Structure formats: C-alpha cells, structure tokens
C-alpha cells in the first residue's frame, strides 16, 4: 500500500529574542502552535495528535516538559509524543509527525519544537564535570573550530569564506521579522573585524542564544484539499545517525549526512540536487558549515562548496539561495532550530516567506543536524503534490 501524501498547511513561530521573560514555557509553545493553527484555519479540535521536540531536558531543568505542556497544546485526550535528537530535534520531530500522517495513523498532526535558552545553561547542561575525566578545554566553538580548520586544509578555501556566509545570513535576517538578530548596520568589514574566539571562528560567525518556538500543521490529502492557503507537499524525508566519535569518523563530511540526503533524494526523484532543488535552509551554527554542508548534501563536489559561497550562488538572489531566513546564525533556540529550517522550506514553496521569498521556489530542502555531527534530519518539500 502506498503512503499517504503529507502536506504542510500551517506554519507558526514566535518572534525569536534573547529572553522571553513575559511567558512560561507553556506560553511560548502556545504562541507558535496558535499561529500554525490560524495559518491552517483549524481549531484545537481538528488536531488528532501532537508531536513535540526540544533539546535535553537539562537545558531548562524541566524534566519531561511535554507532560506539563499537554494543556497548552490541546493534547488532552490525544496522543502526545516527545522526540529528542539533540540539535537536530526540530527536524526529526517534524518527520515523526509526518510519518504518522504518511502511515495513515492520524489525519492531522500538530508538531511543535522549542527552547527557552534564557532559562537554561546549555554549556553547563552539555559538559558536566564528570569524575576522572579531563575537564573540557574549550567551549562549544572549541569543539567545532578544529573541524573547520580541517575543512579549510582539505578544500584549500580562502580564510574569508566564513565571513561571507555570516554577512549574507545576517543580511537575510533583516528581511525576516521573526529572526532574533537584526543587525541593521552590518558590513562585511565588521564581520571580518569581529574578535577571533576559537581561531578560525570569529564572534560574528557564531550563532546567538535565543528563546523561541516553531510549530507546523501536517495533514493528509483530504486535509490539504481544505487548506485555505497553498500547502507544501512532502517529497522526501529521512533521518540518520552515527556515533559522536569512532575510528574513521569524517567530521567534515559525516557519512550519516550523506546517507540521509541520498535517501531524501531517492524518495523525491532528485538525481542532481544542484539542478533539481531551488533553495536550501540548512543548519549552520558556525558560518563555515555552509560550504561543508553544501558538499555533504551533494550540491558541490568535495572541496568545492566554498566556491558556491564565494561566487554569490548562495545569496538570496543567487542561483541556489541558502538560509533565506537568516539561518541558525541569526536565530538559535536550539530545540526549535531544526524545525525553523523545515518550516522555512515549507514557507518558501508555499510562497509565504514574505520579504525573503525566493521567486519561483518550487522545491526546497530543510536540513538539521545535532550532537557532535551525530544526528541528521532532512526533508524536501515542493509546491506540487508528489504524485502530480
């Protein structure tokens, strides 16, 4: 029996900021969920199940927050599932929700992801002082910076590529009212003059810490037919994982990422991603991950990704726009970040992306990763139903 086609008919997100002291966790997720329902013109009663995701419970210290959030998400008397796959969780949460529709378990599913980083301490939550172990010698950037250097060595990319990505993403964010950072006076010179934190990563090439939530309504063919606005159709979705550390692990281009993309492309009938996909919203917490993921996802040959960035191909008006929303570099409520990527892909093919809309975007890839380049989740959405 073939799968049920899955459509995104509602998208919602909060205006992401450094601290939302005016709302509880419940109030935060509620805002995004309410917007997604309004976009789909549905009520709480129209939802059959809720799938929620966030990063580790330890971030905010609320253990199993999904239990307490059931009221806020209208989930009383319905199935409520929690997903957790580190930083990729927003993506994998949406995919679990999509699979419930594809498998005809439920007709209409609300999916929500969030993080309230102002009330958490991510660094502490991720690096507890374990007995007998050597203390970590560097922060989060210190974990990623050596991999960036490895990429630079392998590809021969010039030092400036990272700053080009950051300059582009921060300018894209100016067109997105939901983005956290709105640096109106941003210049390339300012990015390049920002302090080197973990050489080769500069301050302006790192993501902020945000409070925010994102939600989507996923539904079947019948639900899509009732949608007041054009739906985004799921053409392919996949998740892959691998250990954080193992002999032979390629941190620059992890096998799990390549395999995940290949699975999505196979489902969607994509043979040449560079030609068949119009735009990409990918998880880039440090600027250099743009060229790295361009290669990992098959948009460029190994060692060539930086050339797309340098040539302006990934600019909003380029041939393959990347991170139209401003990306993780402009907004990072960790647990929601993956879903914001997926939601942006949906907004683009629905023609609902506002000022950062890519003209004529018909097929857009949403990408998330997390852990030590350990979990990958991706979906490809299109303006046309998958069988048409």
């Amino acid at each position, binding site marked *: 029996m073939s799968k049920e086609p899955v459509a995104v008919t509602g998208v919602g997100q909060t205006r992401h900021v450094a601290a939302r002291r005016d*709302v509880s966790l419940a109030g935060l997720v509620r805002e995004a969920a309410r917007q997604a329902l309004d976009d789909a013109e549905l009520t709480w009663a129209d939802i059959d199940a809720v799938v929620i995701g966030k990063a580790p419970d330890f971030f905010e210290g609320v253990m199993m927050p999904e239990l307490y959030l059931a009221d806020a998400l*209208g989930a009383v008397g319905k199935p409520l599932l929690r997903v957790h796959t580190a930083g990729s969780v927003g993506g994998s949460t949406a995919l679990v929700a999509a699979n419930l529709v594809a498998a005809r378990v439920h007709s209409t599913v609300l999916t929500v992801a969030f993080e309230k980083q102002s009330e958490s301490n991510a660094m502490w939550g991720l690096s507890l002082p374990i*007995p007998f172990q050597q*203390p970590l010698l*560097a922060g989060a950037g210190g974990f990623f*910076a*050596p991999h960036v250097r490895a990429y630079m060595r392998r590809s021969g990319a010039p030092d400036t590529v990272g700053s080009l990505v950051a300059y582009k993403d921060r300018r894209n964010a100016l067109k997105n009212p939901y983005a956290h950072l709105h640096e109106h006076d941003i210049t390339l010179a300012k990015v390049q003059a920002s302090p080197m*934190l973990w050489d080769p990563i500069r301050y302006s090439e790192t993501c902020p810490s945000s409070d925010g939530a994102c939600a989507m309504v996923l539904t079947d063919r019948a639900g899509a037919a009732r949608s007041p606005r054009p739906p985004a159709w799921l053409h392919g979705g996949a998740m892959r994982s691998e250990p954080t550390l193992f002999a032979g692990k390629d941190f620059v281009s992890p096998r799990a990422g390549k395999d995940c993309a290949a699975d999505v492309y196979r489902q969607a009938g994509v043979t040449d991603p560079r030609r068949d996909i119009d735009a990409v919203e990918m998880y880039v917490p440090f600027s250099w991950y743009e060229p790295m993921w361009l290669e990992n996802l098959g948009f460029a040959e190994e060692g060539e990704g930086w050339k797309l960035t340098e040539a302006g191909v990934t600019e909003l008006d380029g041939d393959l726009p990347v991170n139209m929303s401003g990306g993780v570099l402009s907004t990072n409520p960790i647990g929601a970040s993956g879903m914001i990527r997926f939601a942006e892909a949906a907004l683009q093919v629905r023609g609902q992306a506002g000022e950062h809309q890519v003209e004529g975007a018909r097929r857009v890839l949403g990408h998330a990763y997390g852990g030590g380049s350990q979990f990958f989740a991706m979906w490809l959405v299109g303006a046309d139903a998958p069988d048409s």
Partner: protein
Amino acid sequence: MPHVLKAPLTVEFPFTRSLGPVQSAFLTGLRERVVLGVRGSDGRVLVPPAEYDPVTAEEIRDLVEVAPTGTVTTWAWNHEPRRGQPLGTPFAWVLVRLDGADTALLHALDAPGPDAVRTGMRVRVRWAGERTGAVTDIACFEPYDGEPEPPGGHPGVFEDPVRGIVAPARLDYTYSPGRAQTAYLDALGSRRIVGERCPSCRKVYVPPRGACPTCGVATAEQVEVGPRGTVTTFCIVNIKAKNLDIEVPYVYAHIALDGADLALHARIGSLPYDQVRMGLRVEPVWSEGSRYPDHYRPTGEPDAPYDTYKELL
C-alpha cells in the same frame, strides 16, 4: 570482578523560570497569604491553576480565591524525609482539595504518625514565616477541625507581582567510568597511555570505551600507544573558559597518538600558539599530582606528511 573506579557526582544548578500571568498571580498570592485558583470553561475551579483549559484548550484567566482550609483526598506516609523536602521529620504527602476548589494540590501534612492521617480529614494551610512567592510559602498543611475559613474574594491583582522564580535542582549520582576506562586511568597513573583494540575491525580506541562503536563488539586486548603523536587539527582559544586556569590564547588540538586510530584532545604548549600547525609531532608533558598530561610539546621531529594523518582529523 575487575577493579572499577567509582566516585560521587553531584549535578546542581539554579534554574530560572518565567511564570507567565497565571502562575505569577498564584505565587504572588501565596506571598500575600491568598490561595488562587482559575475557573475553567466547565465552571470547575483548578488549584493549582493552569494557563490553558484542560477540556477546551482555550486560554483561561478567570482567577478565583479559594479557602486556606480543605480536605485530604489521598495520602502517603514519608518515613524518611530527604534533603529539600518540606519537613525534616516524617510527614504525609497529601493531595488537598481546598474549600472552593474542584482539584487537589500536592503538599506536605505535618502529623505525628500515619495513624493520625486519613482520607477525608480536614486540614488547613500553615503559612511560612518568610514568604517570597513560591509554593514553599505554604510551609505545610496541618490537621484542622474548625469551621471552613471563607475565601476573601481576592481578584488576583497585586502590587509588585512575582514574575520569575529560581528553582534549584540537584541530582546525586554514583559515577563509575566502567572496566575499560578504569584500566586506562590506572595506566595513566604510571604515565602510560593504554587503549583497546577491536577484535573485529582491529582499530585501537584511546581512551577505550569497552566496546567498538562501529562493530558493536566488546574490546579487551590492551594496546599501549604513543607517547608521541601528531597534531591533526586544532583551534586557538582566545576566550577564557569558566573554571579553567589557563592563560589565553592557547591551542586546543586533536592529537593522533602513534598506534591509535582516532585522535584525542589536549592542549599544546612549550611553543608560541601561532607556531602550532597540522602535522606537528608532539609528546606529553606530565606534572606532579595530575592524572592527565598537563599538555603536549613538540618533539623536534619533522612534521608528519598530511597523507599520514588525514583520516585521523
């Protein structure tokens, strides 16, 4: 049983919480000795209050004062109170439906023993002497055989409301690094670096985990590696990490020890930070009283060619 290390691990953090409008009113009320509930769409009064209606999912904001007296709906005796619990002597955990409320609140009941507690017994709030806007402003409940105290009809609006609280969390574990890591740590004591080889793929893991993450099989064969190795990649740390007494800038490197099949992470010293490079040959520098090498320093050998370590970044 082989020798396995163990140590206490305490995880402790003061989490902050933004309360939102309903919890803000509830906790501010407790500070002012007022217990507030919220009226749901079906007319029931929920105490403690919820922000969203459990029946209709709609936002609910109709605050209602209830009495500080109520009825125990169920209970369990706590023989041995632990750190941070409401009372230091044995007490009953109780669900109390306050007069005027339709749901029950979890709290402690101060009673001389389990024989003095029963479902249906009447209780009242014992207020804490110092109140800050927290559920602990109710010190506990106590048995009460007087008339129900009428609620005061408070509208739930206060001067200087509490908008956020600090919720300290603490978890106590006994941590054990396991058999393989214990052997690794014991060897470090005699300044040897010992990994384990996978019987299937033959890769040498340092530090060993006791199993190969690729093949999923247990490892047992011990292999001494290093002490020399190659810097495969690195970054220069320019910001001071918390609780770390190292002057910045310093170099944080991935080092593939000779004979190991993946890199470990360590600091490079004994040369200026801007002279560290991929391929640099290094060796550990041990210091008294420390289990791990303090840092790694150049051996003076020629740099390793890229092809010899490019799979070990």
